[in-house]
């Protein structure tokens, strides 16, 4: 038996769109059959969330994230498959869900906590802490209908994290609070991680997912398309969203007599790809069409891989001897047997150069590709060794105030000169 907090087995959720469903007894009697259209919000999702994991659930709008969260929370019944959960679940599916505007903050805290399974005595114990966390000391006895949306979400989040949940399900609600509160929430989440609680949250803030999650799950059209390393998960999602493309592009540029086709980055099997790991082989294809007049002038082709701010990272050059000078349609292929240990998002610039190193024509790739190394800070993965030994003790370190001649091991320079 593995130690899971949530286990979904082949879960599908079909929303039956009742085009003409009887919504009253009267209609039910008149028209017995209803027209329906099925919509699969989730398809065959099998997901096991380990105890103590922090999982980011990401996907485009309408990918089924919220539906999945509701199914896991037990609000929606899966059409097929089963969901098992262990422990107390606190969910924050919508800002201030479960609050009643007429009641005061205090009353809502008690009501909300009791909905989440807390007894009155348990709530009494954490009440001050909730109010303190939400920073609502002055307003706790005001009706919540007078609260701002930030106050709403603060109180909702404060209750959810204080009911001592084993599993916390959070939909994209943290975006409402200001930065101060967002940081507080992240601190609380970090504390939950230390306590070994399970967190599943939906977010459009991909950097947050990369930063705090131990795992990323990407949903697309109701299916899990990626499940694993959060860095790769966000990369997959950017691919789906098409945001791996740099904003300014110049492509298929046509000068007189020179035109380029789209630049393609391909993986080992030759399929276009935008995500590579350090060590993966990569093939770059640059189709070009060059008239006879220009062919004679071209001395070399320079391809430069550029990072953020068009910083050149590495250069690849094809010399005149490598070029098919008697043909007008070229397909230049650069093969990189192993991507270098550098993290980042890169584009390719290709220029045709004359013998005097003047560019004749240039193109920039429409798509960017991304190279991922193991998660870590910095753009480079560097091999290094660490060694640590116990130091010789404080006395080994000369202090400026060391009295003359007392410590013979002090470097000679320490008291000399000046």
């Amino acid at each position, binding site marked *: 038996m593995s130690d899971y907090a949530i286990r979904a087995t082949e879960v599908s959720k079909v929303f039956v769109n009742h085009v003409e469903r009887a919504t009253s007894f009267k209609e039910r009697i008149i028209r017995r059959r209803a027209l329906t259209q099925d919509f699969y919000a989730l398809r065959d999702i099998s997901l096991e969330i380990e105890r103590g994991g922090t999982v980011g659930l990401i996907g485009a709008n309408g990918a089924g994230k919220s539906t999945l969260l509701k199914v896991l929370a037990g*609000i929606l*019944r899966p059409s097929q498959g089963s969901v098992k959960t262990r422990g107390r679940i606190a969910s924050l599916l919508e800002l201030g869900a479960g609050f*009643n505007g007429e009641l005061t903050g205090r009353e809502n805290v008690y009501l909300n906590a009791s909905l989440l399974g807390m007894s009155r005595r348990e709530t009494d114990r954490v009440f001050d802490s909730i109010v303190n966390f939400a920073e609502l000391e002055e307003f706790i006895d005001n009706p919540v209908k007078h609260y701002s949306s930030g106050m709403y979400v603060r109180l909702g989040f404060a209750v959810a994290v204080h009911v001592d949940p084993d599993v916390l399900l959070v939909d994209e609600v943290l975006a409402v609070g200001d930065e101060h509160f967002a940081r507080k929430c992240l601190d609380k989440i970090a504390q939950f991680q230390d306590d070994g609680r399970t967190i599943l949250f939906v977010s459009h803030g991909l950097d947050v997912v990369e930063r705090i999650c131990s795992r990323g799950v990407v949903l697309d059209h109701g299916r899990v398309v990626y499940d694993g390393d959060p860095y790769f998960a966000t990369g997959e999602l950017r691919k789906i969203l098409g945001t791996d493309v740099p904003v300014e592009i110049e492509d298929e540029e046509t000068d007189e007599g020179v035109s380029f086709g789209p630049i393609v980055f391909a993986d080992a099997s030759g399929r276009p790809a935008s995500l590579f790991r350090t060590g993966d082989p990569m093939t770059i294809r640059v189709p070009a069409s060059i008239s006879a007049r220009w062919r004679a002038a071209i001395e070399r082709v320079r391809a430069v891989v550029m990072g953020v701010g068009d910083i050149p990272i590495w250069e690849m050059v094809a010399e005149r001897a490598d070029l098919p000078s008697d043909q007008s349609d070229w397909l230049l292929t650069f093969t990189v047997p192993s991507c270098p240990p550098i993290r980042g998002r890169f584009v390719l610039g290709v220029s045709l150069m004359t013998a005097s190193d003047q560019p004749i024509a240039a193109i920039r790739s429409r798509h960017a590709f991304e190279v991922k190394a193991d998660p870590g800070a910095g753009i480079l993965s560097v091999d290094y060794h660490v060694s640590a030994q116990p130091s010789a003790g404080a006395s080994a370190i000369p202090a400026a105030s060391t009295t003359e001649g007392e410590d013979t091991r002090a470097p000679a320079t320490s008291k000399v000169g000046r």
Partner: protein
Amino acid sequence: MDVAATVRVHERARAQGRVRWELLVGIVRKDLKIKYQGSALGFVWSLVNPLVLLAVYTFVFQIVLRAGIPKFGFFLLSALLPWTFLSGSVTFATDAVVGNAGLVRKVPFPLSVLPMTAVGFNLTHFGLQMLVLLAAMLVTGFTSFLGVQVLLAIPAIAVAIILTVGLSYLVAALNVRYRDTKHLVEIVLMAGFWACPIVYSVSQISDKGPFVRWPWLVDAYYLNPMAGVSVSMQRALYGAGHTYGAPPTPVLPDPGYLFYVEKLAVGAIPSLLILALGLYVYHRMSADFAEEL
């Protein structure tokens, strides 16, 4: 994970999925608070409704129709209060799920608490109204309920609660899919009111027309659980000693107790069936509430 932690986790999960007393009380308190918010008189309003009914029916039946039942007010309220409890609960329950759509769609909690809150809300009022009625009886020197007979109220109220809970679950679930349930409920409740001996006494009808020609109709009459509840409450609070007309006819059908216990038992059967049906339907339909709302 050690065993103690496993047990703890399991129990906490169970506590979350179960209808707990504190949750029920919490929601009922919320409903009460919202209903009486900003009203200086608060609970007094809940007493106004039966008082107005008392005035209207007393006027119609004692003055206009000269029905002649002595102490008509006490006779009426004895059975009217449990009926108001039932009709109030069922009306309130119709909206229990639909009216809490925000909760049902966003917060996982035991949904079966919702119809119970309607019952709890009205049971609170029922209790208060009963206290006022008993106090009024004592103050006016109408003390015939003091004695063993008042114990009959216990099984009577029990049957009323069983039926009320069953109906509440049923209508709360049906209203989610069929939004005209509340119109149906209104009609059925209105018919139900007149099918119970509340503003009239059983003895006024049992010697008339169809009830004489087809004696089984009397038995069928008591299949309505609230008919048994009504006469039993009258026996418990109003008492069997009153007569009307000339020659004097007893207001209540039987001076003993067994008759009433028997009628309550007859009424308990359909009540339990409705309770089972209501729970079944609610349980079946509740899994899809979040989707249908």
